[in-house]
Structures are given as C-alpha cells and as structure tokens.
C-alpha cells in the first residue's frame, strides 16, 4: 500500500510538469460529460419525467454513475492501456518483478486528468443531494457511499475483463466500450427505462444496475427493505469472475516478443 501511494505521488508530480496541458485536459473531460448533462437537461425539460423519475432524481443517478466511472478510470487506467503494454512487450517485465501483477498494472498509470469528470460529478451532487427530496438519514448516506464505491469497483471489474481479452486478441476489443463507456453514457438514466430485458441483463450478467437502479429505489423510498440498500455489495461478487477471466487469459499469455 505504501508503495502504491508512492507511485501515485510520482504520477501526480510527472503530470504536473505540463500544467497547461494538464488543465486543458481536465477542462476537456469536464466539457465532454457536460454535453451529456446538457442533453439530459433538454430531454427532461421537455418530458418532465422518465420511467417515473424526475429531473432531480435522474441527476442523482447521473452523478453516482459519473463519479464511480471516473474513479475507476483514474486509478485503473493501466488496464485501459493494457493492449499497448502487451503489444510493446512491456508486460514481460511485469512478469519477472516480485510483486503482484494486478498491483503493477494499476501502478503503471494514474490518470489525474480524468478527475475533470469527478469534479463535475461533485458539482451535480451538490445540487442533486438537497434537491432530490431525499431525507438524508444515516442509512441513506451509507447507501449513497456504497453506490459510488461499489460502482467504481464494478467498473474496475469491467476494465479487468477488457484487459483479459487482450491476452487473446492482442489489440483492445472495441466492443467492451458498450459496457464501459456505454454503461456510463446510458447510466445517466436509471437502467430500468431501457426495458425489462436490458434491466435483467444488467442485473444478472453485467451487474451495473445493482449499484445504480436498485439502491436508487431505496434512496427514493420506493423500496424500503434492507436488501435494496445492500445490492451494491452483492454486485461486488462480479469481481470474482472478472478476476478468474483475467487469470485465464494470463495462463494463455504468449509474449509478442518486441
């Protein structure tokens, strides 16, 4: 852990060397999700509700997903860049070092410019938390924290699967974007609005709805049982198959030799 913090500080220092470029990147990231927010506002302004949720409630959902995703992307960027690591042979070096593989890949890159999205998520939270009409008792606060933290971990699991595929294909699999970028993009609205089939898929196969839709129902008092509060924790089970898949890929690893 201490080693990881050391790595983080090194990455921070190196990225701060190019301050102008760094801040432009943050602004770019901010703007990138800002247009999504603007689109959301246009739609909600026209229709007032969607799937039984109001603008403020949808914004709460938007902020949770955005924050979870940007946390995952900031720290797990190494897995996003994994195809590069495989194809330039860098991964061979990782294998011979006396540390865990996951740890080393995590430590290769911490992308602080992704925090642009995090800032925006925080701003939206400051509006949506009071405006959503939720009475913030301790259990609601805990639920919200669970949503963000478990969400980040589930997105991390998806990045792990993406990296796992690289062992078979060498280059990155664009289709995974539907689940990662798509999960973020479409997670701006509660996943239930996309219909039963997609909700079931996002519950049982790729459990994105477990940290978004179900605990949101608990927050908004639409469901009162403890199970809906704890679904994000259930979603963490998803990390097991992700990890196993990564190991499976690893056992098949052949160096590209360059």
């Amino acid at each position, binding site marked *: 852990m201490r080693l990881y913090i050391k790595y983080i500080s090194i990455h921070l220092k190196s990225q701060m060397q190019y301050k102008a*470029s760094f801040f*432009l*990147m943050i*602004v*770019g*990231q901010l*703007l*990138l999700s800002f*247009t*999504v927010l*603007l*689109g959301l506002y*246009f*739609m909600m*302004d*026209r*229709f*007032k*509700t*969607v*799937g039984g949720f109001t603008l403020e409630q949808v914004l709460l959902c938007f902020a949770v997903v955005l924050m979870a995703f940007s946390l995952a992307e900031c720290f797990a960027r190494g897995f996003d860049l994994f195809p590069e690591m495989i194809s330039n042979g860098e991964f061979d070096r990782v294998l011979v070092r006396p540390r865990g593989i996951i740890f080393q890949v995590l430590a290769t890159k911490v992308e602080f410019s992704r925090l642009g999205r995090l800032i925006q998520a925080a701003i939206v939270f400051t509006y949506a938390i009071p405006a959503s009409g939720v009475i913030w008792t301790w259990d609601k606060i805990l639920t919200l924290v669970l949503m963000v933290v478990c969400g980040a971990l589930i997105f991390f699991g998806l990045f792990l699967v993406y990296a796992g595929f690289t062992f078979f294909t060498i*280059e990155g*699999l*664009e*289709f995974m*974007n*539907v689940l990662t970028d*798509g999960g973020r993009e*479409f997670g701006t*609205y509660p996943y239930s*609005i*996309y*219909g039963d089939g*997609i909700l079931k898929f996002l519950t049982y196969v790729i459990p994105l709805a477990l940290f978004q839709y179900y605990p949101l129902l608990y927050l908004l008092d639409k469901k009162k049982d403890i199970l809906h509060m704890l679904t994000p924790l259930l979603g963490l089970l998803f990390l097991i198959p992700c990890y196993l898949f990564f190991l499976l890929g690893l056992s098949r690893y052949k160096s590209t030799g360059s």
Partner: protein
Amino acid sequence: MTTYFSLLKMRFLNSLQYRAAALAGIATQFGFGFMFISQYLAFYRVNPLAFPMGIDQVVSYIWVQQAFLTLYMTWFFEGDIFSAIVSGQVAYDLARPMDLYGKWFCQCVATRLARAILRCFPVLILGLLLPKPYALTLPSDGLQFLLFVISSILTLGVVVAFSMFIYISTFYTLSPTGVRIISSVFADFMAGSIVPLPFFPDGFRQIAELLPFAAMQNMPLRIYSGNISGMEALYGIGFQLIWLVILVTGGKLWMKKALKRVVVQGG
C-alpha cells in the same frame, strides 16, 4: 486531379485492411444504437405528444447515424497529420509539388469513406430486419434518398473542412489534445450527435440551426428520416454548400498564413 485521386485510392485501400477492427466496430455501433433507441422509447411512453418528430423518424435517425458514424463525427482525427506537424515531418510534405491543404483533405475523406463503407451495411441491414419499434424504415421515395446521399457527401466535406482548422491550429499550439477534445465535443453536440436538433429547446434551437454545425450530420439524418423534405431539404443542401465554401476558403487562407511563419520542429 489525378494526384488527388490516386492519393484517395491509396488511403482507401490502406483503411480496408483493418477488417477485424471494423467487425468489432459494427458490434459496438449496433449496441449503442439499440440502447439509444430504448432511451427514446422510454421518453415516448411518457408523452408521445411532446415528441417534435415521429418516433420512427428518431429510430431511423439513430440507425443511420450509427451506420455512418465515421462520416459524420468530428472526433475522428488523422493521427498522422498531428504527428507530422509536431515531429517536423511536415517539411517533406511542403517540399512536394502539391497543395498541402488538398493532400490532407483527401487523406481525411478517404479514411472516413473507407471506414464507413466497411461498417455501414451490417448495421443498416440489421436495423431493417429488427421488429417494429426498433425497425429502420426506408426513405419515403427515391428522390428523398437521392437528397440524403447528396447531403451526406456535403456533410463529409463540412466535417473534414472543420477538422482542417484543428490540424492547422496545431502549427501554433503544438499540443493538439486540449483543442481537439473541446472543439469536437462542442461541434458534435451542436450537430445533433447526442440529441437531435428538433429536441433542442426553442431559442437555443434557432441559433443552433444557423451555425456551421447544423450543416453536419443534422442535415442528412433529418432528410433520411423524412423530418425535412421537399423544398426544405433543397434549402438545407444549399445551406450546407454555403458553409462548405466558407470553411474551405477560410481554412486555405489560414493555412497559407500559418505556413508563412512555420518553424519546423527538430530534425
């Protein structure tokens, strides 16, 4: 002219090599299209009367947009051009007896065209085969389809002419990432990539419809879906043509100016 044509052909053949990538791209675009349509269907269930265009028009808009993503989106850039400017390679290009603007323009058009041709048919065919609320509908008649094709070609021109400005700006900034992200995100939004222009609130929409971004994907997609037809479509094509001329002339002038003061980086 023959130089440009062979350049176009070369780039085109080069891009056709990446067939596996195209396959993955098709699956991705299909997934995104499906989800976007589900999203609009959810809004449609809330209040069909608040829809500024027919639901089947929106569905067609999304499928055609996904199928021709590489023609319409400003965020596809040629990495070659940026690295040529930053690394100083551009000096060789300047020594060649051909217009640099024309060369880059051709390169961008060819790459986009090749990618689009590789990717569009599976998405379109799947869209046509899907059951009702998700089904892609064909344009009402041959004329409408013809207008759509003309408008698409003009969009390609406008989008590439716009991206030329970003390439040229690299002569000044040398670090394209920031400008690139900000300008393309803004342009794509104003062109209707996230929400079609008819969904924009009044006032905002009227302004958006005058900007050059409205001469991008907005036009062909709305013509295909039948949201714009007849005289209005012809007027729209004229609007695209005007912006194309303005952007190309402006780009060429700026390029001339930029090249006068160009400092070639490194050896």
